[in-house]
């Protein structure tokens, strides 16, 4: 597959990476018009796609900064003597219902609902204050006038509309908006809570896997998502490599799953690190709701919702790392949590890897491609060249050997436009936006 690059670099060029600039989540809204990113510093940057213009056809569909705001600040839990990081773990857009845009953003403990709205008019002609806002002397007012709205420079403002806090003991890893557009769920390591978007002082716990004795803890929840159109159904993944599907109609407390998706482990691959690499880092429903995609450390799997005993398809992302697990354990890379995404038609999967590589798998043709997000290799409007990792034997000229991979450059977060072939790839503190070749 050919990908024409339109690089939209989010941060200015820096030699060293500032930790607070590291992008921690990327998400398109439901129309693809907006793209939100969250970073370790608690900031959210929203990009908006430019309207098509006959005068500048080459700028079709470029994303420009629309709004930037500080979503979360670092906090301190005095009771536990712990700092609560401001890092944005997840952003989820709400469906657009009026002129304003709404998104949910979360750090480890608190979810916030933000309203992003435009202001391009301002009222003028107040009676009690002048144009600068200073209060007028009432004795100087001799006539009454009606304030009028006059055009002004476009201003985009973000305001926090709801703050959902004090409901999670452990670290929030996921949020998911329900298709009923009234509720959403937030998930931490051991519990899932259901919220009403309007109510902040109350939430309902729907899943709790905390054992009575914490020494008996064997698994944690790693991700959760609502079904795209069945508002009673959701799934959550675990560190043991299983996925549970729950139906909220069965009972108020969904500790007992309706379906359990699990593949038996291959005993020949057993090692010290089997538990770690089988832990699922992301789970996503397909847009149709018929399939599930999961990401563990080495592979992406597609499951049919109607078949629990084994995945429909398995795609190896970087199996050449299987022999390097000890080193990856040493440098902590084995704990990296890669996300995975579907394209709009559920025919292509995408996920990240190391060395700023990301991979796409076409489910129909069974072809796959490795691409790289880097400034050196990505001139604007140039076509991305497929990359290849040499796993043994003689290395060809354009291949890279496993030992040369840069494990500090990892692509954990990616997003795919809901209907077009436009992808957003977060590479540390840079955001790359690629789209299909334009004729």
């Amino acid at each position, binding site marked *: 597959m050919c990908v024409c690059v339109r690089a939209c670099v989010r941060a200015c060029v820096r030699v060293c990476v500032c930790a607070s600039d590291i992008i921690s989540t990327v998400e398109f809204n439901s129309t693809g018009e907006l793209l939100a990113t969250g970073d370790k510093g608690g900031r959210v940057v929203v990009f908006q796609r430019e309207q098509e213009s006959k005068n500048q056809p080459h700028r079709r569909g470029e994303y420009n900064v629309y709004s930037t705001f500080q979503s979360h600040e670092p906090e301190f839990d005095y009771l536990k003597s712990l*700092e609560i990081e401001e890092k944005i773990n997840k952003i989820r857009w709400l469906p657009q219902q009026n002129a304003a845009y709404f998104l949910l953003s979360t750090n480890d403990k608190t979810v916030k609902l933000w309203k992003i709205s435009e202001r391009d008019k301002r009222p003028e002609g107040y009676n009690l204050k002048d144009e600068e806002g200073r209060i007028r002397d009432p004795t100087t007012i001799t006539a009454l006038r009606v304030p009028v709205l006059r055009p002004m420079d476009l201003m985009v403002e973000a305001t926090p509309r709801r703050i959902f806090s004090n*409901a999670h003991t452990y670290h929030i890893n996921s949020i998911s908006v329900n298709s009923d557009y009234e509720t959403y769920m937030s998930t931490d390591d051991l519990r899932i809570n259901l919220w009403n978007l309007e109510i902040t002082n109350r939430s309902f716990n729907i899943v709790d896997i905390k054992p009575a004795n914490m*020494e008996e*803890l064997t698994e*944690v929840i790693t991700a959760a998502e609502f079904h795209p159109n069945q508002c009673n159904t959701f799934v959550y993944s675990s*560190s043991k490599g299983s996925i549970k599907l729950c139906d909220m109609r069965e009972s108020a*407390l969904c500790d007992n799953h309706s379906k359990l998706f699990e593949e038996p482990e291959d005993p020949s691959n057993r090692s010290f690190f089997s538990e*770690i690499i089988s832990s699922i880092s992301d789970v996503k429903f397909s847009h149709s709701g018929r399939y599930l995609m999961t990401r563990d450390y080495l592979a992406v799997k597609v499951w049919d919702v109607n078949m629990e005993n084994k995945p429909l398809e398995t795609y190896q992302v970087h199996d050449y790392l299987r022999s390097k697990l*000890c080193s990856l*354990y040493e440098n902590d890379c084995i704990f990296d949590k890669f996300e995975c995404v579907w394209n709009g038609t559920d025919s292509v999967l995408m996920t990240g890897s190391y060395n700023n590589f990301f991979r796409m798998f076409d489910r129909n043709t069974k072809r796959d491609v490795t691409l790289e997000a880097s400034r050196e290799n990505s001139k604007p409007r140039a076509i991305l060249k497929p990359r290849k990792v040499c796993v043994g034997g003689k290395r060809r000229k354009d291949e890279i050997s496993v030992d040369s991979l840069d494990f500090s450059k990892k692509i954990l977060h990616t997003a795919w436009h809901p209907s077009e072939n436009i992808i957003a790839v977060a590479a540390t503190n840079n955001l790359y936006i690629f789209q299909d070749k334009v004729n």
Partner: protein
Amino acid sequence: MDVEARRIMALSISKLYSSRTQRGGLRLHRSLLLSMTMRAARDIYHAAVEQEQVVPCAPEEPMDTKEQDTVNDSLKEVNTREPKDNLEEDKENQDSKSRKRRVKTAIEPDFLPPKKARMDTDEERQEVLKPNNGNGCRQTETLTAFPTNRAIVAC
């Protein structure tokens, strides 16, 4: 194998220790994976060490078949000990079926940090969740920290 197991055990313990001072607090998922890896490595390491200690004895002394069986039984009991056991073993309440002297690790592994006094080792931190769900689907409960200190001590 035991060299690698020992290295992984040491690595896991040091990672568990350093994660306690991480910004944002202890990460439950990471701590769980670390302690599972550490336990797997520990089990293999102990099994390898015990095997090494038993094997040199065999050619020196002709043992009764019965006695040898008893030693083998003890080894088997130690090796097949449930991983879910309380890591702080109560030595007085060991399996009463075998009263033979168990093969013990003679020297404490040198990668363990020196024991030092610390507060709050056995008591779990107790705190009360601020009531949030008015309808009370789940009753309010006390919160406990993940007891990684226990995971570290028992080696």
